[in-house]
């Protein structure tokens, strides 16, 4: 291990978390200012946000998914959920949707600031709830709702790529829709599309994508460098909110630097890493910190997750846009990124098995939630399929990302404690067997 000056260590270790929090404050301050000045925003989602393109029209970006999860982290989600349910929305539908509806009815007021009203909604079909959600804004505000069809994988198996007839059919369609969207954006903003500005933002996204891909790779280190659940969620926030922005690119450059530094100096996210875990699903935001502690108290850390995969908007792939052919390349990146996001929910078995091997994993935690059927429907079956491939302990715990009425802290703790006991017991048996 290198012995570096203590000051350097305190400056670089934890820098990404501090800087992430700062960027978040700046982002919400900017949104609050836009709301107060009556400027409209582009409402977008994490899977296919098209931040690279929307920045070229100077549209502030509002991610309702991120706003909603913030209400849960800040422990006020129940107020928002109750308001939406009083309006008629069922307890059985997505909590993110309901928190946003209540926020809209409060004129955009959220604990982190105020969000502007939409000027346009841009979304993909990566999640069907995106579409139903945007239809609500369409009714509330009469704004254009641009649904981009981005077809995903049709079945498990080899992925078609360039030159394949079906892939080309998809790519042509996505590119055509982007051109249609650009025309709508010109109309909505009164701004003429400038391809050079798009090039500039694609370039920033390229840096961010490279960085994100490298950060994920670096966490194969032992000890692992960051917790995919707690730290990873901060990185995800920046990857979405600052996609295509120079600040986002710089953030990921520095994040890579921090992680490489930690790796070189043998600094892990836990002092005593005893258990390397993979998390499958969406975190439990109503008890976010406590939920992570249930695992860290046992020396368990999440070295990777499907969340870092699907909620990074495709950045995880490290895809590099061809700046000489920006629109076609943006279409290809969008198609590949969104398809990959969907694969993490529908066809993840092979990738999870690879993750278990590459990250030297001791256990896999499946966390289906009431609010999100996209990520949760197939988890029990995925668990079964993964267990057939790899002899690795797994835990299946249900709760929610928003609704504390279905989050039973004591029950979760019991199950998690038992999970660690079973891992320990397996270790003892294995150790006895090997003498």
């Amino acid at each position, binding site marked *: 291990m290198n012995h570096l000056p203590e000051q350097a260590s305190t400056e670089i270790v934890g820098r990404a978390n501090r800087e992430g929090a700062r960027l978040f404050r700046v982002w919400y301050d900017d949104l609050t200012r836009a709301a107060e000045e009556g400027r409209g925003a582009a409402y977008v989602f994490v899977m296919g946000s098209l931040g690279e393109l929307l920045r070229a029209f100077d549209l502030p970006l509002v991610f309702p998914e991120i706003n909603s999860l913030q209400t849960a982290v800040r422990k006020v989600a129940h107020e928002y959920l109750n308001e939406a349910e009083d309006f008629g929305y069922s307890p059985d539908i997505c909590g993110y949707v309901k928190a946003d509806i209540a926020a809209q009815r409060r004129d955009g007021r959220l604990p982190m600031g105020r969000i502007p009203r939409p000027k346009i909604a841009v979304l993909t079909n990566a999640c*069907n709830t995106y579409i139903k959600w945007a239809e609500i804004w369409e009714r509330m505000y009469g704004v254009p709702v641009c649904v981009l069809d981005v077809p995903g994988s049709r079945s498990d198996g080899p992925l078609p790529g360039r030159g394949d007839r079906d892939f080309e059919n998809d790519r042509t369609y996505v590119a055509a829709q982007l051109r249609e969207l650009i025309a709508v954006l010109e109309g909505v903003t009164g701004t003429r599309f400038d391809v050079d500005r798009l090039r500039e933002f694609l370039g920033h996204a390229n840096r961010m994508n490279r960085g994100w891909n490298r950060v994920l790779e670096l966490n194969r280190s032992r000890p692992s460098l960051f917790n995919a659940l707690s730290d990873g969620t901060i990185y995800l926030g920046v990857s979405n909110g600052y996609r295509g922005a120079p600040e986002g690119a710089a953030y990921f450059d520095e994040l890579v630097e921090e992680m490489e530094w930690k790796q070189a100096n043998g600094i892990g996210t836990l002092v005593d890493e005893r258990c390397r875990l993979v998390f499958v699903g969406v975190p439990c935001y109503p008890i976010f910190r406590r939920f992570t502690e249930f695992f860290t108290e046992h020396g368990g850390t999440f070295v990777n997750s499907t969340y870092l995969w699907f909620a990074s908007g495709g950045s995880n792939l490290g895809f590099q846009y061809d700046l000489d052919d920006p629109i076609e390349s943006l279409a290809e990146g969008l198609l590949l990124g969104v398809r990959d996001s969907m694969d993490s929910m529908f066809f993840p078995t092979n990738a999870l098995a690879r993750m278990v091997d590459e990250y030297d994993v001791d256990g896999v935690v499946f966390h289906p939630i009431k609010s999100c059927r996209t990520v949760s429907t197939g988890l029990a*079956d995925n668990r079964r399929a993964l267990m057939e491939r790899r002899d690795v302990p797994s835990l299946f715990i249900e709760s929610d990302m928003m609704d504390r009425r279905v989050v039973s802290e004591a029950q979760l703790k019991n199950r998690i404690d038992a999970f660690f006991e079973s891992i320990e017991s397996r270790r003892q048996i294995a150790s006895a067997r090997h003498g």
Partner: protein
Amino acid sequence: MKELLFPEWRGRDLDGVLGACLDLLEDTRFPTAKRWKEAGGKIVGHFQVYFPEEIVHAAGLLPFKVRGAPIHAAQADSRFGSYLCSIVKSSLELALSRRVELDLFVTHPICDAARNLAAIWGRNVRYPCQILYLPQNAGSPSAPEYLRGEYDRLRRVVEEVSGTRVEDGALRDSIGVFNENRRLLRALYTLKRESPWLVGAHEAYALLAVGGLIPREEHNALLAAVLPLLAERPARSQDRIRVVFEGGFCEQPPIDLIRSIGRSCYVVDDDFLVGMRWIVSDVPVGKDPLGELARAYLERSTYSPVQHDARKPKERMLLERLEGAGAGAAIVAAAKMCEPGLEEQVAYVHALDAARVPHFVTEFEENMTTFEQLEIQLETFVENLLFD
């Protein structure tokens, strides 16, 4: 296939025909699928809502509508978590319990649970399982060409399963068969609308739904035989309110629930199995049959909560359906845990309130067995309207 899959209705009087249809619909052993397989045929199961059955039909395969069943999902339960609608579980149970043996399964991203089905089935059965993407950017000028490409992909998958080429000529013939089916179903719905006392809600439902279980030629023969018998039925109009049932696009309410509703209301229009009636007029039999099918999906189609088309705002479509059917009230239902249904329910209710259309809001599940409470609530609703 020369043998009839559903001979039970033939040679019987009207009540006998309707009884045979109801029996077939409630038979969770799915005898018609079994007979098809025993005769050496192959089956393509397709999940709700809409599927271009013509492509499968042209290959000589049986398109089978996978729409769940009122069965206990003993094996499927372990493949799913909680908080899910019943139809995804019971549909998989049909496969795992081998009640229906398919050769290809296709689902659609109609909702977040349904899209998962292709992956879950694919991990549990040996035949191919696929997702067919239907446009959600329906107004895009490039959507028809894209969908044509997607249908062409499906054609190649079907060819692989059937071992035969699906030529354009065969596709044109199939479109003709399905156009006849669409015409007959329109006639059934015209009868429901104009003379609802001649056909009970559950009877009309059974006549529609058996179409998903048998070859379309047999369904055409059945409808062609029944429609004149219904028109001559010795029945008189009664003093019942005319309602539209909205919310049956995917998971289906139990037939006894539909029967219960029919006891107090005339269901003059509905969205039961709307995918079977998705295309509302004939598909042209032109040079490019796949292209015509794709254009028909986008341009000659009805609406549902699971398709986004800015040209067809769903509340307006519901109000038009009510007006077109001369209905005075609506039953706005949703299957339990059905996210698109429950979300749309809110928009429908607000639109109906604004238009001052009385409405009854409810939830259902395919394996419900008691309806007394719902029946009492519905009767109270009806009485309020009748004596208002």
